[in-house]
């Protein structure tokens, strides 16, 4: 196959990748989009294998079969509640693959046409170090994100004195070493750079707390794209550059949307420590105020007599795996003529769009699920807001109390509903460590218990 044909195939593959993203603008077109993505990938791999002079097909087959089998098994078995950690794990693989390709380019530059060992083009060395460093940061950062999400590591932010100074020093050292590496093409320096980049990726993520994970995952998604683009520059492959840029842009936009959903800057999230001990202390006062607690039968009675119920799911619903029971409850209510809608906050859950997937898994039709801007005006006309596993995203303090750490964050205005039913394990404050004024309002009824068990009890009460 001639070089022109290969390039053409790469171009077509790039277009397929763009169409794959384009398809996601609507659920109906999204499935076709993924097929485009798969076709693009297959074309890219085939065109590469058919390049003149390619050997080692047996080895490639072995690698693809092993990797493909592992990937397939994981993708089939993974629970939808565990999606965030799966995505984090996948990001780490892209990062590590980038490190390996950069190393391969260093040890055998002639295969990529960027010079010979000891005489690699300067521009290629710069691009190689970029791909290497971003790839390594993506890898170690994603491993930490995975460990936090999977619960292997505490989700609490880990901070120590002079942390940011250490990161700064490391970054400067990496920069200086990169310059020396580009000048000398030293293999030792290459691996030293890799180790330092692993270290900084690790250090960047450990101070970031569990509920900031939507931002972290989006950011790592973006990094994995930039790493691929960096490798694309190194080996002079246009398709890699295009795909990397697409992914990088996607991750950056998601990070921006997540930050906006919390009214925080990306810098603020990266500096980390949010929701640590300092904020936890603020939860003290207010403990002596009284709340109205109710039983499942009360909740069932109220909802049965309502004409409009809006369900607000949060991470707690995912943890309790309550989405299926929740849909049963909604079905029973609908049978009684109650209008049921779902309201999703942008940062609900541990990754962007996580709640939508969980609800879809429980067979909730997507046209009953609404985003914050779409549904916020509806709360005023709703009889019941059923808040399950969410807290901070409903806290009116975000609008009224300038001293609150979450001030300015867009919230779901559940307080405007006639009755607010709050399913919660205990009176503990939310992730941000702020008391929720809503608990003490006269029109709020607290339903203490596990999200799934409580919803099950309501279902039983409704069925009678």
């Amino acid at each position, binding site marked *: 196959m001639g070089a022109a044909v290969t390039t053409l195939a790469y171009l077509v593959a790039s277009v397929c990748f763009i169409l794959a993203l384009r398809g996601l603008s609507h659920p109906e077109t999204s499935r076709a989009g993924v097929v485009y993505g798969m076709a693009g990938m297959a074309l890219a791999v085939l065109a590469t294998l058919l390049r003149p002079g390619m050997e080692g097909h047996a080895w490639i087959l072995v690698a693809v079969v092993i990797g493909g089998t592992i990937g397939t098994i994981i993708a089939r078995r993974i629970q939808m509640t565990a999606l965030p950690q*799966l995505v984090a794990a996948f990001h780490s693989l892209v990062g590590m693959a980038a490190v390996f390709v950069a190393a391969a380019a260093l040890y055998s530059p002639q295969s990529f046409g960027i010079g010979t060992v000891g005489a690699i083009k300067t521009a290629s060395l710069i691009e190689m170090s970029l791909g290497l460093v971003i790839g390594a940061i993506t890898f170690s950062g994603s491993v930490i994100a995975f460990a936090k999400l999977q619960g292997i590591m505490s989700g609490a932010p880990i901070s120590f004195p002079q942390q940011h100074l250490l990161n700064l020093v490391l970054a400067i050292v990496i920069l200086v070493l990169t310059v020396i590496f580009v000048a000398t093409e030293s293999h030792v320096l290459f691996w030293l750079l890799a180790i330092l980049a692993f270290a900084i990726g690790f250090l960047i993520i450990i101070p970031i707390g569990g509920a900031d994970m939507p931002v972290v995952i989006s950011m790592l998604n973006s990094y994995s794209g930039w790493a691929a683009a960096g490798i694309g520059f190194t080996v002079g492959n246009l398709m890699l550059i295009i795909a990397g840029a697409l992914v990088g842009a996607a991750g950056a936009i998601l990070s921006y949307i997540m930050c906006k959903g919390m009214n925080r800057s990306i810098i603020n999230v990266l500096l980390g420590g949010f929701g640590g001990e300092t904020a936890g202390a603020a939860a003290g006062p207010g403990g002596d105020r009284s709340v109205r607690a109710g039983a499942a039968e009360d909740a069932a009675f109220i909802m049965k007599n309502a004409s409009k119920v809006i369900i607000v799911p949060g991470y707690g619903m995912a943890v309790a795996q309550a989405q299926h029971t929740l849909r049963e409850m909604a079905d029973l209510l609908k049978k009684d003529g109650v209008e049921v809608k779902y309201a999703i906050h942008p940062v609900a859950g541990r990754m962007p769009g996580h709640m939508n997937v969980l609800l879809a898994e429980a067979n909730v039709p997507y046209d009953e699920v609404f985003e914050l801007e779409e549904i916020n005006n509806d709360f005023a006309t709703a009889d019941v807001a059923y808040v399950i596993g969410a807290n901070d995203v409903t806290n009116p303090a975000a609008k009224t109390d300038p001293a609150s750490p979450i001030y300015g964050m867009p919230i779901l205005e559940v307080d405007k509903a006639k009755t607010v039913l709050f399913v919660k394990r205990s009176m503990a404050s939310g992730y941000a460590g702020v008391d929720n004024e809503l608990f003490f309002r006269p029109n709020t009824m607290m339903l203490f218990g596990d999200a799934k068990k409580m919803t099950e009890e309501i279902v039983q009460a409704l069925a009678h």
Partner: protein
Amino acid sequence: MSDIAQRAGEIAREAAALAERAQVLALEAAAAAQPAAAVAEPFLFLLTIFLLACFVGYYVVWNVTPALHSPLMGVTNAISSVIVVGGLLAVGLAEDAIAQVFGFLAVLLASVNIFGGFLVTHRMLSMFRRKGS
């Protein structure tokens, strides 16, 4: 009348002369630009493509409905694994055994991601159903 015809003829001659000069200038400019382009071309060319792709990504992704942000992550994850091409070239074209080993590992990791990423995205999307279907 002949006056006007004469002037028109003059103008035409002038225009022809100008065109000739412009052509010479253009040739000179092209000759001057050639070495510069040859030096800057590879990187600038790649950078151009990169920036344009960033813009395409930016506009396409803003159109993604928020409900599908998780599948978006899944599919971008799979797409970034196109880095597998780098690994394939390392295995297939390298003469250095170390480089081949790195290439092999890169292909293996990227394959996990390609299969896993696309399949999990497909799984997610197949759950999104409209009311009544």
